[in-house]
């Protein structure tokens, strides 16, 4: 076991986990933040996306012990207008990819509040939706300030 210090959604945590534990594992199993999903567990799908200092990363392939910076998960974005925008645009089917989608989208609109469709497609390409809600996700991001 080895100590990890994490700042998650503004709160400080000190946890003991073995080296090799992923950030996704620590968030879900140690901190109970189960909004971050694990689907492929190998970097392909984006379900586990979190922000580190505002930049989207994949928590399933990130060693908890190497995290430097503040972690923001979907739980930290509860009040973000994108959440409503996803609901308005009906951009959710099974919902499994949605937390990761919102985390990526929130980073995008923070850097670029009015992205074009092409910019949305480039920035959101790492979030796979098996239900195929892509057009609605695009609509949600285009209308998030409405």
């Amino acid at each position, binding site marked *: 076991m*080895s100590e990890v210090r994490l700042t998650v959604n503004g709160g400080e945590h000190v946890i003991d986990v*073995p*080296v*090799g534990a*992923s950030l996704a594992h620590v968030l879900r199993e140690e901190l109970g933040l189960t909004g971050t999903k694990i689907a492929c*567990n*190998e*970097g392909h799908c*984006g379900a586990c*996306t979190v922000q580190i200092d505002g*930049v*989207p*990363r*994949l928590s399933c*392939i*990130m*060693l908890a*012990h*190497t995290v430097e910076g503040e972690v923001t998960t979907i739980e930290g974005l509860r009040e973000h207008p994108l959440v409503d925008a996803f609901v308005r645009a009906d951009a959710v089917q099974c919902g499994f990819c949605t937390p990761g989608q919102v985390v*990526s989208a929130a980073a995008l609109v923070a850097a670029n509040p009015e992205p074009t469709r092409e910019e949305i*497609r*480039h*920035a*959101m*390409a*790492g979030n796979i939706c098996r239900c195929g809600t892509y057009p609605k996700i695009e609509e949600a991001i285009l209308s998030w300030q409405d």
Partner: protein
Amino acid sequence: MELLRPSSVEELDGGVPVHGGTEVVPLLREGLLAAETLVDVRGLVPRGTRDGVIGAGTTLAELEVDPSIPSALREACRLAASPQLRNMGSLGGNLLQATRCWYWRLGYPCRLHGGDRCHARDGEHREHAIFANGFCASAHPSDVAAALVALGARLRTNRRELAIEELYRLPDEDDRRTTTLEDGELILEVELPSVQASVYLKAMDRRRWSFPQVGVAAARVGSETRIALAGVAPIPWRIESAEDLDKVTPLPRTEWKVPLAQALVRRALAAVD
């Protein structure tokens, strides 16, 4: 497993280097890489671009928007992997990524794992190589490496300076490795010559976020036009001219890559002309 964070290259003493971990972590989890000690090298490897020298710790996301680097490298980074992976993955780590051959990833005892047969040659190989595929038919997955080979990049490690082409070797009976990097050797910097024009073109099975089926980089460097390909051989593959594509040795289900490579090479050459 332990994690070390040495503060100088001199302190390095064994262990598996990890930078972004996008390759190391999945390989550890699958049991394809064994490590008692991981060494976080982020404090040792330079990051950022200065006068044509790029720190090997620079992320692909930083490079995809860097106006000071040749377009072939910028474009190879922009088209590689996904946004999250480009935010995490380093240039040095990208050059050292392992094959995506599914037999290798699933742990089949194939030649690259030290065994005596190439399961892909007799089995499923539609994503595999069309050059140098006699021993191992894997297709090198790095867009970035192909771009750097075409650009004539040189690498500086903690031990030597080498042309990027010397980083790679074809695996054979006596030595199954695909790189010449030694234990304890770290890639520190990538140096680029001045380039008049360059381009990277990539065919994928979907419009974005996919490994290269075939990637073609072309660059005009001095009086020379250099061409290198991703996804066609077990290592990044340099060809001297479009005619070299007549020397391919495709497998039954990789023949489709040949016309694809021909078309991309033709377009890439036209673009740097």
